[in-house]
C-alpha cells in the first residue's frame, strides 16, 4: 500500500508540456485515465501529487476520482523511485523456494522495506506478485533484468554490483 504521500514530495515544478502532450495523446478522454497515468509514470518515474489535480482539470473529472485510481492500482506510485529498482517476486513458486529470505537479506543490507527507497536514492525495493519466471525461482528483478535461482548470499552480491562497480567483491 502506498500510504500517505503528503511528505517528501518533490518540490520541482511540474513539466506541464509533457503532461499536456500525454493528455492530448488520448484526446482528453476521461475513460483513458489509466493509460494516461501509466504514461505520466513512465515519463516522470512517479505520479506527482500536483499532476493529479492538473490532469483532473484537463479531463473534466474530480481529483478525488484520479486519486482513487492511483491508490487502487499497485503499479502507481506517488513518490520518486531510486536509481535502481529491485523487485522481489513473491509468486508461489518463489515463495516455496525461499523468496522470504531474499527480501530479508535486502532489508538487512539496505535498511529498507517494501515500497521504500534508500536515503541515498540508489535503491527502491518492491514486492511483486509474480513475474512469471517460475521455473527460475526464486528470482529478483533489478532494473528489468531477472536474476535467477537466488539465495540470500547471491542477492547480497547482486546488490554490491549495482552499488559500486562490483570490482571489490570477494568470493
Amino acid at each position, binding site marked *: 500500500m502506498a500510504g500517505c504521500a503528503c511528505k517528501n514530495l518533490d518540490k520541482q515544478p511540474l513539466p506541464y508540456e509533457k503532461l499536456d502532450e500525454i493528455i492530448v495523446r488520448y484526446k482528453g478522454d476521461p475513460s483513458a485515465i489509466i*493509460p494516461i497515468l501509466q504514461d505520466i509514470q513512465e515519463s516522470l518515474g512517479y505520479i506527482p501529487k500536483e499532476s493529479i489535480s492538473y490532469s483532473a482539470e484537463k479531463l473534466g473529472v474530480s481529483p478525488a476520482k484520479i486519486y482513487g*485510481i492511483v491508490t*487502487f492500482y499497485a503499479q502507481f506510485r506517488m513518490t520518486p523511485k531510486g536509481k535502481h529498482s529491485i523487485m522481489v517476486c513473491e509468486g*508461489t513458486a518463489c515463495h*516455496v523456494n525461499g523468496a522470504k529470505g531474499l527480501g530479508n537479506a535486502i532489508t538487512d543490507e539496505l535498511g529498507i522495506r517494501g515500497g521504500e527507497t534508500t536515503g541515498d536514492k540508489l535503491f527502491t525495493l518492491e514486492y511483486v*506478485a509474480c513475474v512469471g519466471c517460475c521455473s527460475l525461482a526464486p528470482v529478483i528483478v533489478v532494473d528489468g533484468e531477472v536474476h535467477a535461482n537466488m539465495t540470500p*548470499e547471491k542477492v547480497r552480491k547482486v546488490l554490491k554490483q549495482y552499488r559500486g562497480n562490483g570490482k571489490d567483491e570477494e568470493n
Partner: protein
Amino acid sequence: MSHRRILFCAGTGCISSGALKTRDALVSELEKRGIRDQYEVVLSGCHGFCEQGPLLIVHPEDTFYCGVQPEDMAELIDEYLLNGRVVERLLYKDPVTGERTSDHMKIGFYAKQKRLVLHNCGVIDPENINEYIGTKGYEALKAALKMERTAIIDEVKRSGLRGRGGAGFPTGMKWEFTFKTPGDKKYIVCNADEGDPGAFMDRSVLEGDPHAVLEGMIIAGYAIGADEGYVYVRAEYPLAVKRLRIAITQAEEFGFLGSNIMGTGFNFKINIKEGAGAFVCGEETALLASIEGERGMPRPRPPFPAISGLWGKPTCLNNVETFANIPLIIREGADSFASVGTERSKGTKIFALTGKINNTGLAEVPMGMTMREIIFDIGGGIRDGKQFKAVQIGGPSGGCLPAELLDLPIDYDSLTQAGAMMGSGGLVVMDENTCMVDLARYFLTFTQNESCGKCTPCREGTKRMLEALERITEGKGESGDIPMLEELANSIKDSSLCGLGQTAPNPILSTLRYFRHEYEEHILEGKCSAGVCRNLVTYHIDAEKCTGCRACTRVCPVEAITGDKKQPHEINIQVCIKCGACMEKCKFDAVILK
C-alpha cells in the same frame, strides 16, 4: 543446399536465462565463418521447458539442445552444423536414467504431452504472420466467415469447450447468451490479466502464438455480432504486449482485422488495454470497470456481462487459452476436439509446473490425466530425491491436494470435488520442507492484499483469517483457532461478492481438510516439522557432519557461530536470528533444524 533453421526459445524464461546473448554469439560465429546466409536463425515463443533454458532446436532434424551458453556456439557450429557430430554435453540428460537424448519428442517432459493449443509455441516466429499462416493460421477464420453465425456457436457448444480461466463455464453458452442479447454494439474481451502467482500459460501463448488468440477473438466477434474487442493484459508482461501489438498490426495489413475483413463486409478491431497491477481485475466485472477507466472493483451479477458488460453493452469475455482453442475447433471440427478429454471436460489444459519439481515449465495434457502422470512422468518427480507432500492447484483460489489423491484424474469437476479448482492451471509442487500452515498464510496474505475492500466478508474476513494464521505460524496459536477459521472460511465463501472472496478461504479449507495435523502440531506442540516457521525452530550444528571449514561463520550476519578450524562449530541460539544463511552455505548438510 537447403537452409537450415535454428530456433531459439525466446520466452520470458529463456530470455531471463540469457537466450538472446547466446543467439548473438551464434550469429557472430556464423558470420565469422562466412556462412550466415545458409542458416535461418529464428526467435520462437516458449517451448515450455523453461527449466533447461536457454533452449535451441535445429531443424529439419529436430535436434534439441539445452542450457546453451554463448561460449558453446563455436563448438556447436564446427562440430554439429558443419560436421554432423552431435554435441553430447549439450543434450538433455534424463535426471533419473542419466541418458542423453537429441530427439526432443523422446524427452519425458514432452513425450506425454498433447500440444494442441501450444502446437505453434516454440515452432514459429511469433513476430511473423507468414509463419502463422504457414501452419494453417487464419484458415479457421476463412471457414467461419462462410458459416452461419449460429452454426459457429453450435460448433463451439458441441465441442464441449469450457472456460480456461478458472470457473469452467461452457464457452458456447456464453457466446449464445451474448449473441441472443439484442444490441447495436457488442464487445469481445480477452482476459489476459493472468494474476495467479505460479501460472504463466497465458503469457506463453501470447508470446509464442499471438495470432491464435486474435483469430479466436475475431471468430467470436463474427459469431456474436461484435465489431470491437479488447485484450486486457497485465502490465507485468511487456513482451506479450509487444508481440500482441506486432500481431495486430500484421493482421490488419493482411486484411484479417479492420474493415471489410476478407471482403465479407465484417468489421472488427482489437484494442490493447494494459492492466495496472490489481489481481481482482481478473474477475470479469472488475476487469470491465478497469477498461472503462474506473477502480477495478467487481459488481454484483446478474446482470452478467453477456447482457450488460462494457459500457453497458452485451460483452463476451473469455480467457486467452479459451480463445486459442477456437481456431482449432473450427478448423478440425467439434468432434475431433471432443474426442480428447473426459466426459464433462473436453480438450486439453495447459499447466504451469513449478515448485520443488525436476522439470519446471509448461505442459499441455489431455483433460483426465492423473496428477501422478503430470508430476512424475512429465515433471520428472521431486527435486533432490525428496518426498512428495502436496500439490497446490489453481492459485490463491485453489487448494492443496495430498499424496493420497495423486491418482485423481484431473478435470474441472474432480478438482472441485476434492476441494481445489482448475483455476488457471498453476501446479505448485511441494515437498517435505513445505509447511502447509505457512502456505495457507502465504495465500491469505496475497488475497488479503488484493481484496478490493468493497464487500465486508472479504475485506474484514480475510484479515481476521490472516491474523489467526499469523498467530499460528508464530507459535501463538490458540486451541479455538481451528474451529474459528473453519466457521469464518465457510461464511466468507457463502457471502462474498465476487470470486476472489468466495474462493479466498479455499487454501485454508483444503489444508485443514488434508493437513489438519500440521495445524494441531503448531498450536498444541509448538512445532513446525517442515522447519519453516521461524519462531518454532532453532538452528543447530550436527557435530558429526561438521568438518569445521568455517564457511558458515563467515556468512553469519550476527556472528552467532563459534568454533575452531577443523573442530565442530556451535550456534548460539540466543544470538541466532534464524536467517538460514549458514544452512544455505554448508556443503555438508551439517546445519539442522530442531
